């Protein structure tokens, strides 16, 4: 009887300590997530403007205005277009990972160099590429003229080229990260699978197409999910390198939100954009999870 009482007391003290340990992070969750999420939902239903001082309830008016604004759809289109960089980056990263997944002198050096852009200061990289892409004095167009004798494109000033310029930068910056993930994935493939191919008389090409590439599907899934969530929130590069771009050709959804909030001070509309974006991210992620069952290898055959 006494022993049980002591056990209960210990259990109670453990629970008390545990609740105390999670208290700070829960305080953050409740205040900076739950509370402000509810606040944001409320604001999205008002004409909250901190410049004009209005904050009247207007129902779904903000959502209606955004969804009928051609500029919003353009920014969504731009954002999706820029995400073309995800498959391109994956392709290059996969080739690099396959090349480096072997015993070879100097492979660490290549790995470090490819990852370098990912560990550089963001604004520095943006300013560097802004300089490289400069139509007149940028080194890229100088090289094009030097070696091909033609004038290069106006990388940041031509609405048809701006997005391609941003994709090149994105692939360059993100490739090292994806390659490290792929290298880790490659090392997780059990050796026996390759031995089976050997026994049944397959060659290196069979190993690649029947074992390596399909077995990497959980990694592709992770890279695509995180890439899409990050890509839908693109903002900084555009803000620094191109601004809105010629004819708003570089305006992303978050950039659109930023304009609503911090150029027009229309906080209600900015919150509504944030919610439209969240719903969009949620639906896309859900679709990816649902379809993943048909193509992601889950270890059960």
């Amino acid at each position, binding site marked *: 009887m006494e022993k049980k009482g002591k056990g209960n007391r210990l259990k109670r003290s453990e629970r008390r300590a545990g609740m105390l340990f999670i208290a700070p992070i829960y305080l953050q969750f409740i205040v900076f997530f739950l509370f402000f999420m509810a606040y*944001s939902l409320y604001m999205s239903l008002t004409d909250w403007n901190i410049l004009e001082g209005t904050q009247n309830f207007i129902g779904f008016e903000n959502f209606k205005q955004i969804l009928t604004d051609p500029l919003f759809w353009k920014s969504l289109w731009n954002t999706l277009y820029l995400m073309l960089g995800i498959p391109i980056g994956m392709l290059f990263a996969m080739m690099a990972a396959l090349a480096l997944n072997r015993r070879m002198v100097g492979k660490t050096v290549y790995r470090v160099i490819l990852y370098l852009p990912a560990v550089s200061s963001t604004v520095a990289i943006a300013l560097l590429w802004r300089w490289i892409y400069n139509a007149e004095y940028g080194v890229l167009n100088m090289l094009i003229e030097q070696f091909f004798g033609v004038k290069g494109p106006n990388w940041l000033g031509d609405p048809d080229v701006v997005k391609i310029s941003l994709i090149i930068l994105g692939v360059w910056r993100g490739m090292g990260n994806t390659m490290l*993930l792929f290298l880790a994935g490659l090392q997780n493939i059990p050796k026996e699978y390759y031995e089976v191919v050997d026994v049944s008389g397959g060659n290196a090409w069979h190993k690649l197409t029947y074992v390596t590439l399909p077995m990497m599907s959980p990694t592709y899934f992770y890279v695509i999910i995180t890439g899409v969530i990050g890509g839908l929130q693109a903002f900084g590069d555009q803000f620094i390198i191109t601004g809105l771009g010629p004819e708003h050709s570089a305006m992303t959804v978050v950039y659109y939100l930023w304009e609503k909030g911090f150029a027009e001070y229309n906080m209600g509309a900015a919150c509504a954009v944030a919610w439209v974006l969240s719903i969009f991210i949620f639906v896309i992620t859900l679709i990816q999870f649902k379809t993943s069952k048909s193509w992601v290898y889950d270890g059960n055959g």
Partner: protein
Amino acid sequence: MKVHTKQRLTNAVIHVVMTVVALTMLFPFIWMLSTSFKDKMHAQIFPPQWIPDPFLLDAYEEVWEVAPLLSGIKNSLIIAIPVLLFGTLSSALAAFAFAKMDLPKKNLLFMALLSSMMIPGVVTMIPQYVVWGNMGLVDTFIPLIVPGTLGNITMMFFFRQYLTSVPNALIDAAKIDGAGWFTIFGRIMLPAMKPAIAAQVIFWFMGIWNDFMGPLIYLDSEENYTIQLALRLLSNMSEATSEYPMIMAGAVISCLPLLVLYVCFQRYFVDSMVVSGIKG
């Protein structure tokens, strides 16, 4: 013998290809460094000059006076240090509780925290700005410090994964010796988590150093600018006069701390990637 030769040939081909790839990846950095050691004239001559001649340090000397880079570095550290110190402690405590302790409705509490990662940060950004504004705290570091000191859910998740590999026997033994939960955390858990803490702190530091949108929204006066805002200011002021060597010198300076961290702690980058990315 034949297999051996074939393997060597493959390696040689890969070396050639990877050298070309590596040089392409490095080319922007080479141009950044090269420009930063030139004068304004030589930065723009055709054909491009790869090795600066004359080789000048002027941009590195003058850049500090053109833009508030030094106070930018200082301000970024003022934000990073308390956030990393308290935020890491808070994340580690919560991770310990979720991994090793008995809590009522533990899984529900844990999943609720994780679910918040699905909502993009811009959702809570606007009302937060409004509330900090009403409190008169815009253009101070408070909005950039306070939320982070309470923890970081990604970090907490990573720590919890890591702690599942620490044997419970260690905790049981300490309990028999009459150690309290704080002692167990401080004497056993923290030391066991050292590599995970190192990796996560480096990543978080990079995130704070590179944060652009937060400071852009909250900090108005130049003396409060973080390193990223100071860099942007440098570019805004120097581009009209084509002072590209200066801008590139500033860019190099802002990259240096991150590159030093990367070179010194390269192992952690790969480790934390593997755990958080694939097994997590």
